[in-house]
């Protein structure tokens, strides 16, 4: 037991970081489960982080309240953006959401209320390990139950074949819209927890490179598998610590692992033991080959 306490004292920051990254990974996995690639989760995390932090600093409200308001704010922005954007397909959705993320970043950089490029500091340090893992457990339970609900089946159906899903009376654009909004809300929770963990946030925390990190968690874990996403987040968060001795070259390991997964194990870690033949196919061979294009109007 003392050994465990010692381990925790030594690595508590990393343990918290893993949990927060896992929540970010879950947020992306929701849209990936519906088969679409939206890359604005880092931006939504940032929006919620700013909203929640400003409320904590100015009003002193507790973390639960500020986080929920922050997540609601992210979901609201997600709904506004989602309405036009979720009609786009494939690469175009990815690009539109990347563009939105960059715009959000530039706005945060120039507003006075967000502290501009210098960021917001003196955010109350209210995030604790148990809170993070409680949220993670709740979300894990939610994702586990989701698979058994009508909504869960609709999501899976849209991922596998939009046209077939539509012929069963499922509206693919509704599924895409609501997974997008839900994904923004979960990313918002992660962003608020991150802000209250680190005292300090700046626009740079929510840029494209963070988005790539989140995407990497999901791909390593196995696209569209919530469990895989969490494991991927843990693995990728730990890797830099393990390879610290490589100094400047340690990112190479990240790149090689990622490349190897895409090339040799497209189902990710989850695919290594999963015998589920219905496993998500987003990263694997059989994705539709038509030119990824544009709105479905």
């Amino acid at each position, binding site marked *: 037991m003392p050994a465990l306490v010692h381990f925790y004292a030594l690595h508590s920051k990393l343990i918290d970081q893993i949990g927060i990254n896992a929540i970010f990974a879950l947020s992306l996995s929701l849209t990936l489960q519906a088969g679409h690639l939206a890359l604005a989760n880092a931006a939504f995390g940032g929006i919620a982080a700013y909203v929640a932090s400003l409320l904590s600093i100015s009003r002193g409200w507790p973390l639960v309240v500020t986080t929920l308001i922050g997540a609601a704010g992210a979901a609201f922005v997600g709904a506004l953006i989602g309405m036009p954007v979720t009609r786009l397909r494939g690469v175009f959705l*990815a690009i*539109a959401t990347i563009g939105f993320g960059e715009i959000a970043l*530039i706005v945060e950089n120039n507003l006075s209320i967000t502290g501009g490029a210098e960021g917001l500091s003196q955010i109350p340090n209210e995030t604790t390990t148990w809170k993070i893992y409680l949220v993670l457990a709740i979300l894990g339970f939610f994702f586990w139950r989701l698979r058994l609900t009508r909504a869960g089946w609709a999501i899976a159906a849209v991922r596998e074949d939009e046209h077939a899903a539509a012929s069963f009376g499922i509206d693919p654009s509704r599924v895409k819209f609501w997974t997008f909004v839900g994904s923004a809300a979960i990313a918002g929770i992660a962003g608020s927890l991150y802000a209250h963990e680190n005292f300090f946030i700046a626009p740079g925390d929510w840029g494209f490179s963070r988005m790539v990190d989140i995407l990497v968690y999901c791909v390593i874990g196995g696209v569209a598998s919530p469990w895989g996403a969490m494991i991927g987040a843990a693995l990728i968060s730990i890797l830099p610590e393990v390879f610290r001795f490589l100094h*400047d*070259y340690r990112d190479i390991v990240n790149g090689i692992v990622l490349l190897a997964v895409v*090339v040799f194990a497209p189902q990710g870690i989850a695919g290594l033991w999963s015998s589920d033949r219905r496993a998500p196919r987003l990263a694997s061979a*059989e994705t539709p*080959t038509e*030119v990824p*294009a544009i709105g479905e109007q």
Partner: protein
Amino acid sequence: MFDQQLANGIFLGAVYALFAVGYTLIFGVLDILNLAHSAIFMASSFVALAMVRHGFPFWAAFVVATCFGGALSVVLDRLAFAPLRARGVGGGSLGPLISSIAFGIIVVAVMRGIFGPDEMGYPRGAVPNANLHVGHAAFTMMDLWVLVVSLAMMVVLSVLLKATPLGRAIRAVAENTKAAALLGIDVERTIALTFLIAGALGGAAGILIGAQFNAVSILMGQRIELKGLAVIILGGMGSIPGAVLGGFLLGLLEVFSVAYLSSSYRDAIAFAVMFLILIVRPSGLLGRRAARAA
């Protein structure tokens, strides 16, 4: 004031266009969004700088580093895309997007390991920097070189695509890989050559922009990567003339918005335009291919 802004916009636009042409070429042929293109852009810029610092003249460094960019791009294809193609993973899926990100991470990490994280400049006098004047616009010899070389490379590319057997093969593979193979086209070789050309163009853009601003850094790829996306969306994904037009338009838009509006939202222009185009007209200004696929 206006003359100067116009000149600045054109010089900036030329490099955007040169970068975006290689980017969009890969998309046009393989439907792949190649997010390692910016890493090749950055790596070539460093190779040219290193050669100049070791005493080679700038033109020699330019030629060698451009070839390096092409070669690196072929390596990218072999490592990151060819294995997926062999398994039948189509463009437009997540796989190639991720593997190109992975390759980009590796290249960036290697370059950071070799050259360090700091911004570097060319030695004094290594780059032609005499001052020139046209009308009320002042610019340097290097600016002019950037424009001339960019335009020349884009002209050569369009002639190559239109009027040579290789160009016909590339266009056939872009249209339909299987049909091209049935017609006796060596698809893998054509794709490799496409990557060679795209990488050389991206590399050349990196070398030129590094010399023009006298600043070469690990981050320069990240900075242009998303701007390049805006350019190819503006022009139309996969359209070469579109990328050229989009590049110059974005260069001018940015420069004039800084001059007449505000500098703080300069970078937002690119993404606002991109976002609007995607919503209103996802095929872009000249995007024939994408529009037809709808």
